[in-house]
Structures are given as structure tokens and as C-alpha cells.
């Protein structure tokens, strides 16, 4: 798989989308300055050039990376962790954030932290919940009670 090519293509699609949004910005010629479109346009143009150059760059071989790091003897060859697992964790956490948005900080955080712990193999639910609850509690006391900083309230109640 040509990794750089895929990344470059995704970037170019993104740049085109952003450029389209940029063209929709209102035109202003006040004050003789270039207006709100100018800066994003310059950045996008530079990004486009670099993305195209990335498209034609050969992927870095694994051996090259190690070579570049040769001064560094301590680094152990890191095993690649599966990306699917990581994305699953992200998805669960995102669900947790949405839950916090709806039901508020206390319950939302306990549930989402417990879910994360379950995902990584803490199958003993009471322990996971107790740990999540204590973390939440400490934060609750620190913020709401001691510092008087409001925490997300939840929009459902």
C-alpha cells in the first residue's frame, strides 16, 4: 500500500472542501486589507503544494526509521498495536462524551470510564465502577465544591 499517496489524497479532498467553504465567505474590501478570505487561501495553497509533493514522495521504509534513530540505543523495537482496537476505544469514549452531554458530568463520566475499563479487560464490574466513581468523585469535589467551577450539567434534565 502506498501510504503517502492515500494520505495525500485525503488531504487534497479536505483542502478542496475547505477551499469551497472559503469561497463562500463574504467579500470585504474595507480598510484596504486583504479581507477574511486571504489568509486561509494562502494556507490552503501551500498545503495543496505540500500534499502533492507528499503524493510523489516514496513511503519511508521501516529500516530507514531505525537508521535515523541509530544514536538512540535504548529504543526497543516497538510492536505495532492494532489500529482497530484503538479506534474502538475512541468510539467508546466518544459515546461517553455524548452521554456526559446529555446526562451530565457525574453519571456520564462514571459510565464512560467504566466502559473504557471494561474494554481493556477489567471484567470485574464492581471494581471498575468503584474506581470510576472515585475518580469522578474526586474531580467533582475539586471543581464543583472546592473551586466553584461548574461542570457539564447535562441537557436532558
Amino acid at each position: 500500500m502506498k501510504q503517502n499517496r492515500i494520505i495525500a489524497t485525503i488531504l487534497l479532498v479536505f483542502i478542496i472542501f475547505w477551499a469551497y467553504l472559503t469561497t463562500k465567505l463574504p467579500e470585504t474590501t474595507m480598510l484596504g486589507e486583504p479581507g477574511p478570505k486571504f489568509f486561509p487561501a494562502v494556507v490552503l495553497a501551500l498545503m495543496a503544494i505540500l500534499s502533492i509533493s507528499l503524493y510523489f514522495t516514496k513511503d519511508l521504509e521501516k529500516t530507514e526509521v531505525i537508521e535515523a534513530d541509530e544514536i538512540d540505543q535504548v529504543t526497543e523495537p516497538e510492536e505495532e498495536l492494532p489500529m482497530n482496537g484503538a479506534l474502538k476505544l475512541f468510539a467508546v469514549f466518544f459515546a461517553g462524551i455524548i452521554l456526559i452531554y446529555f446526562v451530565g458530568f457525574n453519571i456520564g463520566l462514571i459510565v464512560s470510564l467504566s466502559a473504557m475499563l471494561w474494554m481493556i479487560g477489567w471484567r470485574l464490574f464492581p471494581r471498575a465502577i468503584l474506581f470510576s466513581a472515585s475518580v469522578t468523585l474526586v474531580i467533582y469535589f475539586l471543581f464543583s465544591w472546592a473551586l466553584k467551577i461548574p461542570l457539564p450539567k447535562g441537557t436532558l434534565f
Partner: protein
Amino acid sequence: MKTSKIMVIVLTVLLAITMLAGCSSTPAEKPPADQPVETTFPEKSIDLTILFGAGGAADVIGRKLADGAAEKLGKPIVANVRTGGGGAVGYQYVLGQDPDGYNIVWNSTSICVTYHQGNMPADQDFSAFRGVAKISEEASAIAVKADAPWKNLEEFVAYAKANPGKVTVANSGVGSFNHLTAAAIEDALGVQFKHIPLDSKESVTALLGGRVDAMVNMAFDAIPQVEAGEMRALAIVGTQRIDAMPDVPTMKEQGYDVDLLMWRGIAVPKDTPDEVVLKLQDAFLESANSDEFKEFAKKYSLTVAPTTGAEFDAYMAEQDKMIADLMEKIGLKKQ
């Protein structure tokens, strides 16, 4: 191992208690309709949204005012800074909460400006709020560097008339209150400036650094520089002279009809019940009228000019029209 288990249990029990406590503080039930003046409000702490940066004049004065009002109400008023969008973020936050009086905003001229600039939804102009009390007014000033050739407004106007579009005047950003003031001055003086949009602090550095000819800024930002002999204030834009600069005449005294004041007050979403608004109004007016607050406001060159909520509503409507006209004139009115 055992101790840690006990700890966890204790913590969980504590958590349960806090959550129950949290539930008990649900909004008060509505009082029967036949006795609208009696209200148990407030039963929990009130969230005061502050629209501009922490530590700034708006923030510090808002907090001080809230401290006094909280004493009267018997529940804390917690000031929370919600900046962004020239105030739009904070205004929209408050409008998004229940209109029960527990979410109030430290309102200012910014509600009119940010709305007409197009940063508030079409149905959320000043009238989406209801005034609790108007609290204060602040005047702005036009100032030049101390070594500038213009000794007074007259000389400055003469020079500006001779050089239309050449005199650079720093304001506090496009569509800012001071931009509007500068435009109003232009109008009254019959001159044309070149407006440089900076923020209020950048204006000071730009003038001291000699990059602009004059600045239109809150008088408060000019005072220390004038006192130190670094700047010369040409005129106060307001109804009366300022204690800190008693020698500087107002625009009106010099024959120009410019009278624009930055005002601040407390507002709530418009559906907030009468009895709650009245209770808040009493508390905030008392706080504003206290000597302690007046003394405090003086340090920020703020004129304490409290009015009731009803008067504030009328005042906002009048001001909104004036600001809309001004913004129309300089081509900034979007809605």
C-alpha cells in the same frame, strides 16, 4: 488492600450523597398565581455570565457588583467568564438556559453591536433579554500623543479637515464601541479619519509608539497615560467631564453633538417571571448604590447610574436604534 477497599466504599457513599444533594436542588415550584410578589427565589447559587476577558474591567466590576447582590439575596452569585464572538457566545449561552433567574448576564452595549454585526441569530437581539437593572456608564475619550502639534480639539479638527482620510485614528476594532464612537465623532466634526482597528491596549501602544495620530478609547485607558504626561486628551465623549481628567472638556461643550456612552447592566432571558426579576433588581440596585461599589467603580472611571429593569428595557430599545443607525452609516449593519 483492605484499607483501599474501605476507602472506595466510603468514597462511593459520599458520591451517592452528593448526587442526591444535587437532585434536591431542582428549580423551585412556581408560586400560586394569586400572590405573585412572594417568591422563594433564590434557592441555589446564581450563575452570572461575564462576556469579556478575565481580569478586565468588565469582569472585575461585574464580580464586585455580584458580591454585593449576593449578600442581599443570601445565595452566592458565581461569576463565570464566557468570552467569544464579541459577547455573542455568552449571550447565547444565557438565552439557552431556563428563564428562571438562575442564569443572568452582565450585559452591555455589546448586545446591540454584536447583533447588528450579524453574530447573533436573527431573533436574538436586545429584546430577547429583559433588563434587571442598568448599572453604569462609561465615557470614551479622543487622545493624541503629548508631543503632538495639536493642543486642542479645534486645532486637531482643522488639521483633519485639511487632510481628509490622512489622520490615523486607532479604535478598538471593527464594529467595536470605540469604532462607533470614532465614526460618530467623524460625523459631528465633518472630517474623515483613517480608522485603524486595534484592540484597546494595542491602541495605547500604537499611539505611544507613534504609529497613529490619535486614538478613540475608553477614557479609562487614556487616564494613566494622560496623568503621566504621555498623552493629551482632546475631548471626552459623554455628557459630563470626568473626575480623573477635570480639565478635559466634553465634545458637547466644544459645540459638537456627540454623546455616546458605554453602558452596562444585568439582564435575564425575557421569559423570566416578574417576581424573580424584581427580587434580582432590588438586590443589584442595592449593591450598585452602596458606597463600597461606588468607590470601587471610581477606580475604573465608571459612572454608577442605576435604573430599574423597566427603565433599562426602554433605554436599551432607544440605544439599539441609535447604534443600528450608526452601524448602517459605516456599512457594518448586517441585520
